[in-house]
C-alpha cells in the first residue's frame, strides 16, 4: 500500500526532512542531504554579502528542482519579524511553504506560541502553507490547526539539544486526538533511535538538523537517520505489541520431555 505524505496538495517523497545549518561547508551539506534521502531541506533567510560577490550560494549546491526548499523564520522573536521574513522567503523562493518560528526565549529557543498563533493566522490568509514550529502542547496544536496551519511541528526537545523525544505522551495525543493535519517532529532528535521513536509514535515526518550536521560523521549519520525514519514508520504501521510486566513464552510447552 502506498504511504505518501501530503501536506496541502504538496506531495513528499521522504518522511525525513533535513536542515542545512551548521555544516562545515556546502560540499558536506550536499553529501549529507543526498545520504539522508530527504526531499525537503530547510533554509534561513539572511542578508546577501554585497561587498564579497564571490561567496557561493547554498542553492548552487541544493537544486530547488530536486528538493523542496522550506524556508524558516529562525531568529525571529516578534510576529512582525516572522511575517517579514516569510514574505521575503516567498519572494526569494519558489513556493508558499514556510516553517514558521516565533521564538520566545534565547536560551531555550522555545516558541512564543501566542505570537506563533497570530503569525500563522496572518500568513495562512496570505496563501502561505504554514508549518509552525510549536511546543508539545496538544491544545496549542489544535489552535494552530484552527488558525490555518497546514501541519504542526512540535518540538521533541530544545533545538540543537539532542535530548530526544522528551514528552512522547503529548506527541501521541497531538497525533491521535488534537489535530487532523500532519505532525512533523522538529528539534531535539539526537540519534537514530530518537528518530525511530518519533516515527513509531505515529508522526508523519521528522525534521533533523543538528543531529546530523553535528555528528562526527554527518554523512554516515544522515544515512542512519534515513533508515531509522523508514524503520520507525514501518513499525508504526505494523502495530507494535502491547507492553506487559511478565513473560509469555515464545516456545510451546506442549511436546516437552
Amino acid at each position: 500500500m502506498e504511504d505518501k505524505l501530503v501536506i496541502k496538495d504538496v506531495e513528499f517523497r521522504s518522511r525525513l526532512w533535513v536542515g542545512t545549518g551548521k555544516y562545515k561547508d556546502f560540499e558536506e551539506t550536499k553529501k549529507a542531504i543526498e545520504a539522508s534521502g530527504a526531499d525537503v531541506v530547510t533554509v534561513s533567510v539572511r542578508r546577501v554579502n554585497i561587498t564579497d560577490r564571490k561567496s557561493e550560494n547554498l542553492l548552487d549546491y541544493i537544486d530547488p528542482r530536486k528538493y523542496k526548499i522550506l524556508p524558516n523564520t529562525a531568529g525571529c522573536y516578534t510576529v512582525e519579524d516572522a511575517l517579514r521574513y516569510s514574505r521575503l522567503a516567498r519572494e526569494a523562493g519558489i513556493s508558499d511553504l514556510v516553517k514558521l518560528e516565533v521564538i520566545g526565549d534565547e536560551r531555550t529557543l522555545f516558541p512564543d506560541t501566542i505570537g506563533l498563533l497570530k503569525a500563522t493566522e496572518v500568513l495562512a490568509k496570505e496563501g502561505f502553507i504554514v508549518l509552525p514550529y510549536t511546543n508539545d502542547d496538544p491544545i496549542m496544536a489544535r489552535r494552530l490547526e484552527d488558525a490555518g496551519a497546514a501541519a504542526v511541528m512540535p518540538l521533541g526537545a530544545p533545538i540543537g539539544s539532542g535530548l530526544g523525544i522528551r514528552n512522547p505522551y503529548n506527541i501521541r495525543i497531538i497525533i491521535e486526538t488534537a489535530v487532523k493535519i500532519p505532525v512533523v517532529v522538529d528539534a531535539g532528535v539526537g540519534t537514530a533511535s530518537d528518530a525511530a521513536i518519533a516515527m513509531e509514535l505515529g508522526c508523519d515526518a521528522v525534521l533533523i538538523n543538528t543531529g546530523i550536521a553535528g555528528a562526527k560523521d554527518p554523512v554516515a549519520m544522515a544515512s542512519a537517520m534515513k533508515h531509522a525514519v523508514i524503520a520507525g514508520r514501518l513499525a508504526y504501521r505494523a502495530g507494535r505489541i502491547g507492553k506487559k510486566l511478565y513473560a509469555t513464552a515464545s516456545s510451546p510447552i506442549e511436546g516437552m520431555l
Partner: protein
Amino acid sequence: MRFLFFMRLKINGETVENLQAATVGELLDTLRIERGKVAVEVNMSVIKKQDYERFLLSDGDAVEIVNFVGGG
C-alpha cells in the same frame, strides 16, 4: 536619455554613496547580484521580481537584499 542621478542608499544596513541605479533592477546589476536567488525589500516592502525594472529608487531608501543560507 535618462538624467544621471547619484544616490545614497542604505543597503543591508550599510550606507552606500554615489550609486547610479534608478531602479531595483539596475541596483542588482550594479552590485552584480543574480536576480533568481534573492528577494528585495525597499523601505520594508517586498518588491516582486516582475517589478524590479520599474520600481524607482529614491535617495535615502532603505534596501534589503536577502538570500537563502543554511538553517534548520
